[in-house]
């Protein structure tokens, strides 16, 4: 009677491709490998449950208003895939393209936002700069007076940005992959990656060893640990990022609002919760424990923007891990020294937005065993060669 979203399988002794990490990136990679390239003998290995990591902990904001040409084109592809995903996967992902504000509170940030708008427009992405009265028209409760500690000077407005039901993205990719024959193994832990003569031979898990010639690591915050298994050092630093939701209110906020200066972003879901996120915590850490300090500073900063939220109550707080790269751009890459090993990581605070394009291009890379042009800039050795992608210049709060 009930149709299963995905099935539990016995683990085979060998697969063509093993994808480590059952988040949006891993599952999208599996889905597009099966759909676009006909490769279906795939295992997705997940230590906990699918969507346990960043895919289930992010604040579900989508946008493509990046700063660099590489970033803009990549996230534009991602956003366009998202726009049709609900139809393609036959699942209501509740994508609400409600428009996305990035507020500027200083001349320096207005300059940076203007550059983003200019680059976006030149590359066909809809972005513009709004002045405070224009902002006030769309967000009537925002305080644009001189009263706040950091008055609002303007905003980058990006109409195609919005929010989506993030867990549903994970589940529907999982279903799409499962329907095409992909095996999803939850509660399965990768203990080692077997490499011989510079070639991938298999993966050792707590449920037995799998033989395979291609392994894709899609484990975000845990990437350094997985890559250590094949002797690759990554320039990643893992930081916690904290978020919260409020209790449910009659929908009042119909746009995504981000302020880098105040380190906050918020949106209101179709259920009525305000979903609120912060910049990354200052300290590198693998712990996902929430802090009181985050609640306090978030509240203080939020009330600067929206004093009417004084009596709104926080319902739940949590944390996730962000694998930060030095240039705030991801790493999607083959590895010269280990044939058959692919890295997909460095997603920092922007991984969820990139999942479809990440899966699409990673799948192509694995299937064709060469780097697609779209992600050529995201190779892992760009740090050694000092060829960074300048998204760091865009903002410290990248949501």
């Amino acid at each position, binding site marked *: 009677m*009930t149709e299963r*979203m995905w099935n*539990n399988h016995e683990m085979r002794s060998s697969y063509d491709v093993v994808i480590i990490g059952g988040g949006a990136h891993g599952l999208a990679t599996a889905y597009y490998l099966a759909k676009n390239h006909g490769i279906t003998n795939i295992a997705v290995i997940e230590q*906990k*449950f*699918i969507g346990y990591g960043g895919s289930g902990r992010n604040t579900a904001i989508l946008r493509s208003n990046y700063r660099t*040409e590489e970033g803009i084109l990549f996230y534009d592809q991602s956003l366009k895939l998202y726009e*049709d995903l*609900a*139809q393609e996967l036959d699942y*209501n*992902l509740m*994508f609400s*393209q409600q428009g996305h504000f990035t507020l500027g*509170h*200083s001349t*320096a940030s*207005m*300059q940076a*936002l*203007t*550059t983003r708008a*200019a*680059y976006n427009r*030149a*590359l066909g992405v809809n972005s513009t*700069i709004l002045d405070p009265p224009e902002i006030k028209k769309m967000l009537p409760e925002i305080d644009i007076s001189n009263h706040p*500690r*950091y*008055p609002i000077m303007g905003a980058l407005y990006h109409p195609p940005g919005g929010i989506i039901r993030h*867990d*549903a993205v994970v*589940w529907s990719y999982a279903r799409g992959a499962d329907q095409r024959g992909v095996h999803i193994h*939850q*509660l399965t832990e990768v203990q080692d990656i077997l490499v011989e003569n510079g070639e991938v031979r298999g993966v050792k898990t707590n449920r037995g060893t799998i033989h395979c010639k291609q392994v894709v690591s899609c484990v975000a915050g845990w990437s350094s640990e997985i890559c250590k298994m094949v002797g690759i050092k990554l320039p990643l630093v893992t930081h916690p990022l904290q978020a919260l939701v409020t*209790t*449910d*209110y009659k*929908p*009042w906020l119909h746009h995504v609002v981000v302020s880098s200066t105040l380190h906050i972003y918020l949106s209101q879901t179709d*259920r009525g919760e305000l979903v609120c996120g912060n910049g990354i915590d200052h300290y590198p850490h693998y712990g996902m424990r*929430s802090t*009181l300090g985050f*609640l306090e*500073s*978030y509240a203080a900063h*939020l*009330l*600067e923007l929206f*004093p*009417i*939220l*004084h*009596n709104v109550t*926080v*319902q*739940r707080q*949590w944390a996730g891990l962000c694998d930060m790269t030095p240039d705030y751009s991801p790493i999607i890459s083959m590895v010269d020294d280990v044939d058959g090993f692919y890295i997909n990581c460095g997603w920092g605070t922007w991984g969820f937005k990139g999942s479809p394009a990440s899966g699409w291009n990673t799948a192509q890379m694995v299937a064709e065993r060469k780097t697609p042009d779209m992600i050529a800039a995201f190779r892992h050795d760009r740090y050694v060669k*000092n060829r960074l992608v300048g998204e*760091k210049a865009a903002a410290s709060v990248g949501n």
Partner: protein
Amino acid sequence: MSRRIDSHEFYEVDKSGKEISFLFDGSVVWAREGDTISSALVASGRKIVSRSFKYHRPRGIYDADGYGPESLVTVDDEPNLLADRVLARNGMDVRSQNNWPSLDFDLAEINDVFVPFLPNGFYYKMFHKPKWLWPIAEKQIRKVAGLGSIDTAGRHNSRRYEKRYRFPDICIVGGGPSGLAAAKAALGEGKQVLLLDDHPELGGHSLHSLARIQESPFSELEGLSEHEGIRKLAAELQDNPNLEIMSGAMVFGVYEDNLVAAQWGNDLMKIRADKVILATGASDRHLVFDNNDRPGIMTARGVERLIMVHGIAPAEEAVVVTTHDGGYHTALLLHGAGVKLKAVVDSRASGTEGVFEKQLEDLNIPIYREMTAHRAHGRKKLQRVDVGPVKGGESFQSFDCDLLVTAVGLMPRLNLLSMGRGRPEWDAERQVLRIMNLPEDMYSVGEVEGPADISSLLQQGMETGLAAAKGNEQPKFNRKPEENIEALPADIESGGDHHFICKCMDVTRKEACMSIDEGFDQVESLKRYTSLGMGPCQGKSCHEAVARLAALDTGLTESDAVPTTMRPPAFPVSFGLLSGRAHHLGPIRRTPMHHCHIDLGVKFLDAGAWKRPDSYMDPQQEALYVRKGVAMIDVSTLGKIELSGPDVIEFMHFMLPGKFAKLDVGRTRYAIMIGEDGILFEDGTISQIEKGKYYISTTTGNQDAIYTLFQWWLTTGDYDVQVKNLSAGISGVNITGPKVREFLSSIIDLDFSNEAFPYMHNRQATLEGVPLNLFRIGFTGELGYEIHFPSEFGESLWNYFMEKGEPFGLKPFGVETQRILRLEKGHLIPGADTDALSNPYEAGVGFAIKDDKEDFIGKAFLAEFKQREIENRLVPYKLQEGDAIPIDGVAVIADGKPVGRVTSSRMSPTLGYGIGMAWVPAGSSEAGNHFNIRSLDGTNVIATVLDHAAYDPEGQILKS
């Protein structure tokens, strides 16, 4: 219709509370002081208090304790408050939520009718095809979603919140019998104790218990009934000077290192204690049966509380469903309050007969054994209950009643323990969730460890208090077999459409089981799919149901997280409380001359933490005063760092890419700083002002970062160098313009001639006894002197200069004007004209790098940059006269693609056309090259690259 009781068979009713009234949905409700909104509503005979989230089912007061969502209301301008927890105040305006047109007649209840026809998880399976449907559907959904409304009219600043701190030896959460006993024991050991309780009166559930205290570690309580005994114990502690009691304090979080956070009135309490004892108690478990959410179905402790604490009989006719002797206690209390008991329904066949069971039998109240509730009838209020066999099957009998009490055992209130990182485990034998491993310095005691009788609670409370006081480990307690509770009945046959396990989100047992079958077979994924436990109660009322689902054979995997992670806050807390007075935003920094600027009619600019003068009049006009006369700017916000010591040169050579060995006393030099990645992040000047004393002037934004960086590197211990951050202690002005030499010579006793005081030199002087450091530098491109002096003279010196300068036409100018002037001169500002990828060679400041020295910060990357061809360059440019001035940040476009950006763009008042700086590809970066700037509106202007500066390219003015 008032349900107040005048007398009760078993205790004396307190009727002292003054009569007050408030509005509920516009109708007057009479209350007594001490009432909660809920108790007053029950007393007034009101049944429906709220509407459920999804299906808009009518809901009434349930546990009268705010552990579920049933009592959510709006009070004055505050939405989503728990009526169970808010004390009634005279004149308050209480409104129900999530209904239209009214609470009693809510059109959206139609949703409830459709439930059987919708697929499980229907919201993921509908409205997305065709593509155009969703935006329309979403709009409608957003019209009805949510609970309370945010008051956008702005009456939100009615409260003022403060933050307070406590540092007791021992912090006890929960003022029930075990918490009080623990406090007494710890006080006996001479400890400072802080006791927090979430109710106005200490005593916990004991306040409504008639049980006799048989044995007690405190012999004076023996023989008393529990509610008398607990009041006696509380009263005895009340006056102890080592005890602080916070009644009505909601502890909402236990964070890292046992930081306890609570809301106490309008205060956010942050508590750091040596030891934390969690005695948070237990709540009634929830019985799952058909329509188990109807108004009129209440928990045993909720009913007891209404009777004994508030003197209210909640109904006319009642049925009690129970699994243990406690249900008989509740029945007795109802009987004593004059409520007609239609039946007591006991799931047990036989077993230990409790004292209350015996008493009730003697009253000839009908008792039905091996039975439980099967179904509730009545929509807006309970009308009838079907009871039948525990194993299910046909119902046995129906009872007309307006109250059904569920007394089916207790579940521990684990949230705070779990936040302390204890891991809950399901104890099948005792049918409770327990937390076995608490972190260091944390203890738990009382019913949170599983149900127990009053003697055990007092004894174990005392032992735990002693253990905490002495720093011993948490004592291990063995529960008596009779304290074990029965498995819940009616875990069978609960597959109907109205068997709710999560009342916040309207999730039924059936929905949960179907979701497990769909593949959401781990508790965390089940939670995310069904929203089970994600509503306002945050799982407080359903986490046990989830654990039981996992324990039963439903296919739910028993993973390492049973139930789902309990996250803070345990109770909703407002942004207002959390923010307090918003110390997190950082103070505003003002220079000593701040008020002089205001007097001059300044427009301020926010520059990081600082308020800086942007301009006093039209900046274009101000700029001309500098170029043609003399003007002054406040530069007090610049960083001023003094370095000295035997290794100072070596240290500077490591920290900065420049060389300073030949920088003589009295000389000043331009310097840059780069990161370990070779990226330019700072420029400023370095002066040797006295022998061995180097004075570094940094930008406003980087002063703290650079000071920290110096100190960071000094901790390596390899350098004997002293760093002094003089930024706040020294203030300064820059006086500049063709007439500056004439002006300054007239007031300062110093030879200002070009020969005696050349460009890029520094001198010392005094003015009216105030020591001055003077630096001849030229950021504005005009002859100018930066004058530094102790900050305490800032205001008087500013006024002195303004007064003495008047005959010379001295005017003030601001940062915006300075930006125009430096742009005319082609001077960059790091951070404004550069970003996190700007290498210093491409930025045009390679001249400040002397890389023929030993290791220094960024050396490796600089070497690599140097090898590499220049790809982009930061160049000064000019526009044609009459061209529109683009705004800062717009793109440089070549072949339709963005290839660079304008960093600074202004009208030059001196030259009469637009000038600026831009990053352009190397191929178009030579003087005389043209490039295309595109504004956001799509218009283009052609810019011409300049060789060095638009104004005084050879620097003749600066150097003469």
